[in-house]
């Protein structure tokens, strides 16, 4: 078991090393830094940005600011998503009221909301929260909805037979049995929310990893664009890992 785990980690590291190596070779063959910068240059620049500020801040600050925006939006998305999902899954009436509207709003990409969000929320953080929120809440809603709908009828029956009231059935059976679904939704939503940070920071800003890319584009700075992309990728990976870790902790019972 242990040695198999080790083997898998080595395989992962080898893939990443191989990917960087191929990139390096191709970029050396292309030999055009504005078109395709060398992998080594991007990685080196990436580390440098933690020391040398880009714009007003160093990379650490850019990441923290973006994380703050995603964090606020994600908490809102979680609250709204769980409430909507549970409501639609539990009550036919709520489902009839919300579901069609939800399905109409869902396919509109977060980027399409940018103009309206500036109109409604201005150029500050509020419009960024709004866009990231839109990029993540639907996943939480859908998964929660699914979970609430799929509660084992026998578990509800068992709780009723043991004397649980309607309210107790909801809080002690329906909600907890939806938790694995909710977490599956959170897992997708955290990644989706984080990836909409670029779009959100396209709305006038002076900081954030999304801003690095937008600014790089405006200045024609390919390396800065790719450094921003790398930062988004790495942080996104870490966020997904963190969610999995929290899920494992909280859902020990679900670990067959």
């Amino acid at each position, binding site marked *: 078991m242990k040695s198999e785990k080790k083997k898998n980690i080595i395989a992962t590291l080898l893939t990443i090393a191989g990917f960087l190596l191929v990139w390096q070779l191709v970029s050396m063959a292309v030999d055009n830094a504005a078109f395709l910068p060398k992998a080594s240059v991007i990685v080196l620049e990436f580390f440098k940005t933690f020391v040398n500020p880009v714009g007003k801040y160093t990379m650490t600050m850019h990441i923290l600011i973006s994380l703050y925006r995603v964090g606020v939006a994600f908490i809102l998305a979680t609250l709204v998503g769980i409430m909507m999902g549970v409501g639609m899954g539990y009550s036919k009436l709520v489902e009839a009221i919300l579901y069609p509207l939800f399905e109409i709003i869902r396919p509109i990409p977060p980027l399409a909301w940018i103009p309206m969000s500036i109109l409604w929320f201005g150029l500050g953080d509020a419009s960024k929260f709004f866009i990231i929120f839109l990029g993540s809440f639907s996943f939480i809603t859908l998964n929660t909805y699914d979970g609430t709908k799929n509660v084992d009828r026998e578990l509800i*029956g*068992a709780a*009723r*037979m043991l004397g*649980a009231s309607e309210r107790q059935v909801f809080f002690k059976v329906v909600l*907890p*049995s939806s938790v694995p679904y909710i977490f599956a939704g959170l897992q997708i939503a955290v990644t989706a929310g984080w990836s909409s940070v670029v779009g959100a920071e396209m709305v006038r800003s002076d900081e954030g990893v999304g801003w690095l890319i937008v600014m790089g584009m405006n200045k024609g700075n390919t390396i800065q664009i790719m450094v921003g992309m790398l930062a988004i990728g790495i942080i996104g990976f870490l966020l997904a890992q963190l969610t999995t870790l929290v899920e494992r902790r909280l*859902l020990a019972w679900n670990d067959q």
Partner: protein
Amino acid sequence: MERSVKESVLKVENVSKIFSREEGSFGQKKLVENHVIDQVTFDVYENEFLVIFGPGQSGKTTLLKMMAGLEKVTDGIIEFGQKKISGPNPQLGFVYQSIALFPWLTVMENVEFGPKVKGEGKVERREKAQHYIELVGLGGFEERYPAQLSGGMKQRVGIARAYANNPKILLMDEPFGALDAQTRYMMEAEIQKIWQKEKRTVVFVTNNIEEALFLADRIILLTNCPTKIKSEYHVSLPHPRSYVDKEFLKLRQEITNNMDRTL
């Protein structure tokens, strides 16, 4: 006779069940009716171990769920303590074939669920739950989650959970149906032992003749669907019974001969 002196605790009177659903596509919908139970009448007596036994296709589970209030009757009346059953009643305990433990709760939390939703204090309900966990032989497993238990152990938790709610009648729906033969024999002996220690009225549904004869004071034999009562047997063999006892085998043959065949 002794039975006539015993008090009836639950009455099933002329109960029928018809499941109906719409079938077919637009324009040519039709109502399909499935007549499952047909005018069944019987009593359940205090502290008896009643086995409802029937072929695979009989409506045994439906009948039991109606007695529990988990399923509505189409016709007839089921009375428990002079009152008509109209919904789940915590004075009736139900043990599922699927066991239906709450997977996010530990053994202890599952067993104390009933007392807890009724608002019993922590110390009191823990003590009660502990008693039944030990009664079913699961002492030491209180903090385990259902996923960490074997099938037989899970069903022990299901039984302890039903007992801890202190029901007047325990309704058991093929509780050992999903267990392997070995575990099943063990659980049958176990449930008898538990029943001897903590007398309750038990209504036990099964499609296994050996199980029926091993456990029952009285067996109600059902027909195929639409289900009626075919006959009734009183089993007075002493416990613990042997599966190869002469009397046991004779009764087994008699009941088997009288049973409807299913494909």
